[in-house]
């Protein structure tokens, strides 16, 4: 049966901010105080990136933004478990993962400002550009993993997608291929309870993690608001993939605290009590409580974190508002790798068309 807590949920850090012992402990044995502080900083900064981008959208600087508010632990816990040479295939909401990969802040908003078809170079940070077609990236990750295996390398491909995506053929077909070819791929599903207006119950009658075993893929459910738990299960799955054990499926049970995108109005479909309930499980609060209890949330540390968040927000805003406008003929770039005569003719015609206004003294009719 579906559940958001309970026995089948890996949890190493409770909502009250206490460590819960369990078999996954060994996977995060190296996470000492300083590293805990690092994870805290990551989550605070990523939340700040999200808030700043949301504000930029409200101010008309971005056309749209998909907030990750509430999903920081799932993204930072898993993202910080990855090795540099692992390769991520994500959807549009994984800015926290992109942050872990070292994505440039301006690159995160280029697309949402409408300036460019994509932000970063996938090969520079080993992360594909975000996928809008729901679920398509699960297949790309699987193929990448198959190729990695052909190469005899031990890096892993990770596919991030939402609960809604698990309804798509692509995600299910990806699991078939991953299992058949024992591809070193990790499917990381952030079950944030909602696919726009549709609750997860419309996509799945049982826990989403129950599906993978039917494909021959081991799976685990983890408290997606527990950064340590997310890190532990991801490390285990990566280790399995690296050592020839094939694919894994992780269901991180979390919650989208904001709207689906800045264009969405969740009050039409969502009970406000539900949001209140989940606020009590906030991923950042609970780590703060643990740090507090261990005396690691001292003034200079929080000052440093806040200063970093301020700095990042400033960089993001500056990068956004100073992005140069695209050039008039840029639409023709990169359609093909080699010249295409028909498109070249269209470019030539359009450039003559633009020039005809200048010849006529500028300005359109």
């Amino acid at each position: 049966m579906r559940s958001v807590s309970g026995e089948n949920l890996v949890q190493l850090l409770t909502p009250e901010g206490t460590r819960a012992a369990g078999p996954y402990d060994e996977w995060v044995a190296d996470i000492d105080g300083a590293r805990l502080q690092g994870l805290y900083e990551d989550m605070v900064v990523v939340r700040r990136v999200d808030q700043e981008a949301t504000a930029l959208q409200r101010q008309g600087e971005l056309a749209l933004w998909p907030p990750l508010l509430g999903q920081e632990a799932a993204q930072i816990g898993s993202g910080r478990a990855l090795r540099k040479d692992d390769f991520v295939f994500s959807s549009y909401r994984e800015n926290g993962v992109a942050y872990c990969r070292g994505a440039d802040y301006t690159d995160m908003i280029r697309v949402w400002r409408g300036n460019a078809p994509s932000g970063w170079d996938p090969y520079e940070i080993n992360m594909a550009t975000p996928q809008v077609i729901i679920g398509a990236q699960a297949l790309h990750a699987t193929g990448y993993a198959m190729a990695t295996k052909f190469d005899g390398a031990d890096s892993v491909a990770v596919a991030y997608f939402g609960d809604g995506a698990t309804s798509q053929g692509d995600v299910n077909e990806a699991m078939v291929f991953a299992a058949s070819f024992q591809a070193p791929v990790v499917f990381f599903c952030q079950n944030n309870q909602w696919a726009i207006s549709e609750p997860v119950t419309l996509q799945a009658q049982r826990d989403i993690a129950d599906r993978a075993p039917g494909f021959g893929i081991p799976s685990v459910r983890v408290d997606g608001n527990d950064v340590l738990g997310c890190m532990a299960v991801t490390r285990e799955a990566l280790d399995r993939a690296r050592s020839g054990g094939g694919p894994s499926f992780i269901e991180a049970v979390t919650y989208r605290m904001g709207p689906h995108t800045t264009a969405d109005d969740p009050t039409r479909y969502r009970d406000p009590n539900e949001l209140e309930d989940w606020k009590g499980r906030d991923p950042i609060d609970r780590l703060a409580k643990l740090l507090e209890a261990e005396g690691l949330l001292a003034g200079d540390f929080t000052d440093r974190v806040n200063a970093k968040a301020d700095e990042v927000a400033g960089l993001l805003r500056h990068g956004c508002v100073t992005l140069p406008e695209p050039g008039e003929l840029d639409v023709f770039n990169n359609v093909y790798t080699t010249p295409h005569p028909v498109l070249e003719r269209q470019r030539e015609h359009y450039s003559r068309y633009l020039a005809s206004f200048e010849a006529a003294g500028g300005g359109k009719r």
Partner: protein
Amino acid sequence: MSTMTFGRAINTGLRKAMEHDSKVVLIGEDIGKLGGVFRITDELQKDFGAHRVIDAPLAESAILGTAVGMAYRGYRPVCEIQFDGFIYPAFNQIVSQVAKLHYRTQGRVKMPLTIRVPFGGGIGAAEHHSESPEAYFMHTSGLRVISVSNPQDAFAMIQQAIACDDPVLFFEPKRRYHVKGEVDEEVDLASFPLEQARVEIPGDDVTLVAYGALVQLAKDAALAAREEGLSVEVIDLRSLSPLDFATLEASVRKTGRLVITHEAAMTGGLGAEVAASITERCFYHLEHAPVRVTGFDIPYPPAKMEHHHLPDLDRILDGVDRALGRTNSLSDLEGN
């Protein structure tokens, strides 16, 4: 008569169709409580129940594939594809199954599906949210393809599409959803046959063909041209498949000149079909080769570049000038 938005007109048309025939069911993502991302199905689930306005799991191939099964059992499913760019996961079901079942079963099985697709650009949207995929479906035998441009047509023709026993792709120009117009709800639906183009503005010098969001631009262009002493006849195709050649031919016989405009890429697009067919049918009446003013052969560009891709008033007028052999941006090119 009442004044309503284009979006509201479709909502009202859907409501009428559902009242009229209990076998009409709507299926799509987020169409229930949310009323669809464009609110086109607003309130319909509340009034008709969740078994007639079905929030589908997030799977387009399944939306179309299960609609096929429902149609086998006598239902008339109206599938909503959330955005143009998300029709491709359902493409296989549409072209391999929906389009062919009547033929394959030698007429025994009907597929009275309506597939509603908000399409086209001009709204500053993200990737995959501004596509014009109509030519793929025109190229598929067994499908009817409609695109409406104003609230009255939207109201009447969505009902006609639903009543039609053939599968109909119904392309709704999303940038027109909020535009208001007069709608007569008592109108005789029979006066909106599914395959008739309409002369929007009569004229003598050149025929300008458009559909969807570009109809308004074409009308604006005709008005602008009038100030320059030109008489442009504007035709709203409404039916993209089949094309209404009677209306097109009559117009071109009169004007001798043809301009076709659409947002979709030029190569293999609707304009190519109109130009070739009209050249075949009206060769001796043409005074100039047909002219296409279309989107470029590029993936739909980012929001800040879309105005370079989309035909606008000036590009259409430039095309009109070309068809008339008047000075235009390509005047100095041979065989432009």
